[in-house]
């Protein structure tokens, strides 16, 4: 931990910085009225312009999510119900010759999928240490505007699964699709506090650092595959 000397220097630096900022702003304190306005703005959830492309009914909105996710190089398989997820996963593994070892988030919702019907899958649960080819997670929400997945860290949802395995498979329900980022924030705040990490994920990892040529699979997943359960009415 930092020593007492450094702590004192740090608090002197803090005072000096606030002193200079306030000199530049021409004030020494923020008056009560202004402060109340600013506090209200901080908690007010006021939105900027929301792209009109997301003003859609449920099913077209889900289609928009699917289109935008595909445009960002995600692959998507739409299945009728949770019962069809294990077969969809097996198909994906077979398509890329990925063996049958799966590292899966310990999310209780994923337990509702009948994995036992596919005894060929070897599923372990927990965070990734970098040795896994395939990671399977759920998501908190999906944002149609740009085909973005919203994942929250927590005991059931290790962040390493989103980045270390070469293949990231997300099992999503169509009823989780929302229009804009702001809808995701509202849902998050209504459900509790900010988690340690919120990941907005839009397609697999990529780089353009070699002669501006876009290549997929930089440091994170080479593939992002979404299995979408059509549960929306």
């Amino acid at each position, binding site marked *: 931990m930092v020593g007492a000397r450094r702590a004192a220097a740090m608090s002197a630096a803090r005072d000096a910085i606030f002193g200079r900022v306030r000199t530049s702003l021409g004030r020494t304190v923020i008056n009560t009225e202004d402060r109340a306005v600013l506090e209200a703005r901080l908690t007010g959830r006021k939105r*900027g312009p929301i792209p009109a492309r997301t003003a859609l009914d449920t099913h077209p909105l889900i289609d928009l999510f699917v289109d935008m996710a595909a445009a960002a190089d995600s692959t998507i398989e739409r299945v009728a119900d949770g019962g069809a997820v294990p077969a969809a996963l097996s198909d994906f593994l077979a398509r890329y010759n990925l063996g049958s070892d799966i590292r899966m988030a310990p999310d209780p919702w994923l337990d509702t999928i009948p994995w036992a019907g596919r005894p060929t899958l070897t599923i372990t649960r927990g*965070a990734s240490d970098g040795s896994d080819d395939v990671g399977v997670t759920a998501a908190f929400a999906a944002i149609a505007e740009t085909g973005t997945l919203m994942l929250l860290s927590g005991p059931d949802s290790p962040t*390493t699964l989103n980045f270390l395995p070469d293949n990231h498979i997300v099992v999503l329900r169509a009823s989780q699709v929302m229009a804009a*980022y702001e809808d995701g*924030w509202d849902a998050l705040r209504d459900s509790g506090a*900010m988690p340690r990490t919120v990941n907005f994920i839009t397609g697999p990892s990529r780089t*353009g650092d070699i002669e501006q040529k876009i290549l997929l699979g930089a*440091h994170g997943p080479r593939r992002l595959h979404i299995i979408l359960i059509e549960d929306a009415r």
Partner: protein
Amino acid sequence: MESTSRNFNANVRAALANDALQSALGKIESGFVANRANAAPRLPEFDALRDQARDIKDHILDNLDFYLEAFEARVLESGGQVHWASSAADARAAILDICRSVDARTVTKGKSMIAEEIGLNDFLEENGIEPVETDLGEYIIQLRKEPPSHIIAPAIHLVKEQIEEAFRGAHEGMFDSGRSLEEPRALLEEARAVLRQRFLDADVGITGANFLIAATGSTVIVTNEGNGDLTQTLPKIHIVIASLEKVVPTLEDTSTLLRVLARSATGQEFTSYTTFSNGPRRNGDPDGPEQFHVVLLDNGRSEMLGGPVRDVLRCIRCGACMNHCPVYGAVGGHSYGWVYPGPIGAVLTPTLLGLDEGRHLPNASTFCGRCESVCPVRIPLLSLMRHHREQAFEDKLSPAAERTGLGVWAFFARHPALYRFATGLAMRALAWAGRKQGRFSTLPFAGGWTAHRDLPAPQGDTFQRQWSARGGRRR
């Protein structure tokens, strides 16, 4: 980072003669520029969002003290620590202290312009800590021991043959020496393999921040590679380094800024990974850092806030101004001599390092205005550059010939009759002198110009006289 901005003219000469650089720069128009041009019309709200982004940033600057306090309080609430640094030296010392507290040997780094600004890598090395850049572009230039040449594409000045050369040198003994590295894919796979192990071994991860959110105490990074996430998730300690003006009020404001950032930078609808971090690992979390530190750097910003270039603090570091700058496209980022190239650098460098060091940069502009027209937060880059030019003139920093020349021109501009008479005389004299060859290959006072091309001899009359002879109207 050591500045060479005062050597701008020499830097430019070298850049123009560098064939590899010219070939690399030639790809910007068909890359970044075309991508942005395609992205903008896909979002009809783009211009409204830019207005909103500008207004949000102005509002933040008006209330920077409030939002910094709020941000600090939220970070502390989520179990993180905040370190205030007035200067680059303060920030380096704070980071070193944190690294030493866990006897760190290697530090992985996500891309951070602030880390460049404070010269972090050299400092860590001097103190026995190995910094490992993990953004592919940053990794490449770290191997080549050179600074970034672009704020979002640090290795944009290189062609793949140069990257191959760097990898063959740095990775010697790690791979078969007969391997092919001709394809960009092969280069990427090799870097991925090397860096994967570095991610897993690092003691500390340092990232920058695109935004700091006052309402939630979140720090936000935006990457395409996922390197920033591996940098901040795997080691015991995550350090975020950011400058004061990165603070943003709310998640909604951040969403607006994110909408304009990706499109302006790479022309993407959205960047692959946008990550919001709130403190260290929580009870029950299976992964994540045990400590979370935010180092907040001033380094001149608090004073800029009350000065004539305040608007530049709106910058969200998208890089669009340099992508669209014809001068940047001709001379590349290294010519500018310091951390921030292109139009944004032409405003920032003289402000942060002084006009004495940076006065050439605001002159390195054709004032075509392309930078301003694409800036997502509508920074008046031209008037800010003009401000520096005027200041340099007033401070008598520009060379005597330039000052005398401008003085002479100003005299004639105030005396139009004399101007017409003198230019008429000069044109007739030049026409007479150049009547044999029809051109001049050298001219007194114009050696800089005629060194690279000939001046055609005038046809004997001034523009103004020809203009009035034609009735003063375009036909």
